[in-house]
């Protein structure tokens, strides 16, 4: 049982190598957070949830990775399964752009959208590189995983981690989880599972993710940007405004030239005569 106290950074370590796709995490999350049902998605896999959003704070991805070659036993390549969730980034894109201050970092170092402050502008949705956030149509506010903020305040671990039967989702202080993750990936490498890798356990992705992963393939396979593509929205402020300022300067310059160099009008009619009031 993890002792939960404010001031410590908590998070998830999701080990996809042991995920069996049971969706217990999704069910536990929906039940605890009282999230609405959503119409099932019927694709060509076992995923009927679709994606993360306002009603799905957890989403078990089923990634069909079946190769043309015969698959050997135990190489885990046929299906990639991952219980996806908000990453609670240290440098969070959503928190950066939020104009209302609704998105905050809590005393547990998690990223939380305050439902009574959010006004549903959806700037966070445009910014989140993991497509985690959705707009609740009934409440009109943005929603995502809270890392069970209310449970943490009550000293309880998040519902999804508690429900996970395979320990694929582990909850705890981030520092401890990182140590566990490193041991796990080392163990996998030592048994020849060379494709195992950690994502977000160090600061190369958004300064570190409080909810980080052990993946069995490239992050892009799991709909997550590589460390190189993990960039913040504010990167475009400088050149965006600079281009606007240069355009404004050129527009004014052109306007001034147009004002000064134009041909004289055909007759110098005193314009103030057109409904011009007296200066009394």
């Amino acid at each position: 049982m993890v002792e939960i106290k404010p001031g410590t950074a908590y998070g998830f370590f999701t080990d996809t190598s042991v995920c069996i796709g049971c969706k217990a995490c999704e069910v536990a999350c929906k039940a605890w957070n009282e999230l609405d049902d959503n119409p099932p998605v019927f694709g060509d896999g076992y995923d009927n949830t679709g994606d993360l959003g306002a009603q799905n704070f957890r989403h078990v991805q089923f990634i069909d990775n079946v190769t043309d070659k015969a698959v050997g036993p135990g190489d885990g390549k046929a299906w990639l399964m991952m219980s996806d969730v908000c990453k609670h980034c240290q440098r969070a894109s959503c928190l950066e752009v939020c104009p209302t201050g609704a998105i905050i970092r809590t005393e547990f170092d998690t990223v939380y959208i305050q439902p009574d402050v959010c006004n549903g502008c959806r700037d966070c949705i445009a910014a989140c590189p993991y497509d985690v956030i959705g707009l609740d149509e009934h409440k009109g506010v943005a929603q995502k995983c809270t890392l069970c903020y209310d449970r943490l305040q009550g000293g309880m671990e998040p519902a999804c981690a508690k429900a996970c039967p395979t320990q694929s989702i582990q909850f705890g202080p981030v520092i401890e989880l990182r140590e566990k993750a490193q041991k796990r990936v080392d163990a996998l490498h030592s048994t020849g599972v060379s494709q195992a890798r950690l994502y977000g356990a160090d600061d190369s992705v958004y300064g570190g993710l409080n909810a980080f992963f052990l993946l069995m393939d490239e992050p892009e396979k799991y709909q997550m940007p590589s460390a190189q593509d993990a960039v913040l929205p504010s990167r475009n402020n400088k050149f965006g405004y600079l281009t606007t300022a240069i355009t404004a300067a050129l527009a004014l310059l052109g306007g001034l030239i147009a004002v000064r160099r134009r041909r004289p009008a055909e007759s110098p009619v005193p314009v103030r005569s057109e409904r011009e009031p007296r200066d009394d």
Partner: protein
Amino acid sequence: MTEHFAGPPDWTWYILFYFFFAGISGGSYAVASLLRLFGRPSDEPASRLGYYTAFVTLLPCPPLLVIDLGEPIRFWHMLVNTTPGDVGPIFKYWSPMSVGAWALLVFGAFATVSFIAALVRDDRLRFGLARLVARLDRSWLGAVMVFLGMLLGLFVAGYTGVLLSVSNQPVWSDTWALGGLFLASGLSASVAVLIWLTRFRRLARYSTDFLVRGEQWFQILELALIVAFTITIFQAGAVGTAFALPWLLLWVFVLISLVPGISGFGLPHAVGPSGRGDAGALSASVAVLPWLVVLGVLALRAAVIFSAQF
């Protein structure tokens, strides 16, 4: 090539028309102020037309933004942080939406004052407070106000493009050109509207030469920025998204809409209030072609906004 996994924010029609009207409002104020500060006395009627246009096109902006919110009644949360323990004004200079909310508020005050002053000068308002506003408007303080309003107008017309870029959406975040592109096109639409409005204000035609030359310049800037936009998203590997069907059709329309402005609407430059010498050409060109330009500016914003989301 950048890989994007961000989901669409569903910014659609309300935002499209907000971007459109904000561009015209800010652009009209800037053009009106340019005429006011640096033009001749004969430019005064066209300048007032600009202030009227800035105010009228600003009116739909707040309602469009408010009804687009998931929780419209909390529109004021853009300006005031209601987080318990942290209540007070909120301004995040690194968030274009936050900066834009404040800019729109302040620009609204400038546009309103200039609108009232223009009404008084046109002798359409006579009560005391309005006359005081008009008198202030004519002082050096008025010139400073108009200059600051011009800068704010340029900001309001262009920041919407930066707002899109400051995200992780495909197309939008792959380019630095959107702020400039929205500004140049906003100015272009503003001048087109003013050219059209000169049909209804004879004395404003003294400024037709300036407006036509201005339109040429703004559309050349717009064209250059469309080229820059295309190059940047090509480098990011997002050309297929931005120029996919049906958005490609919108882009074609945008390019067609640049033709009349760049070619000077086929107007003789020095058209006076009588339209003497070429009244027929003036009437036909000014009645139809500016709307082609305005619709092109709307199509440009639609292509940018929708192509990244659908």
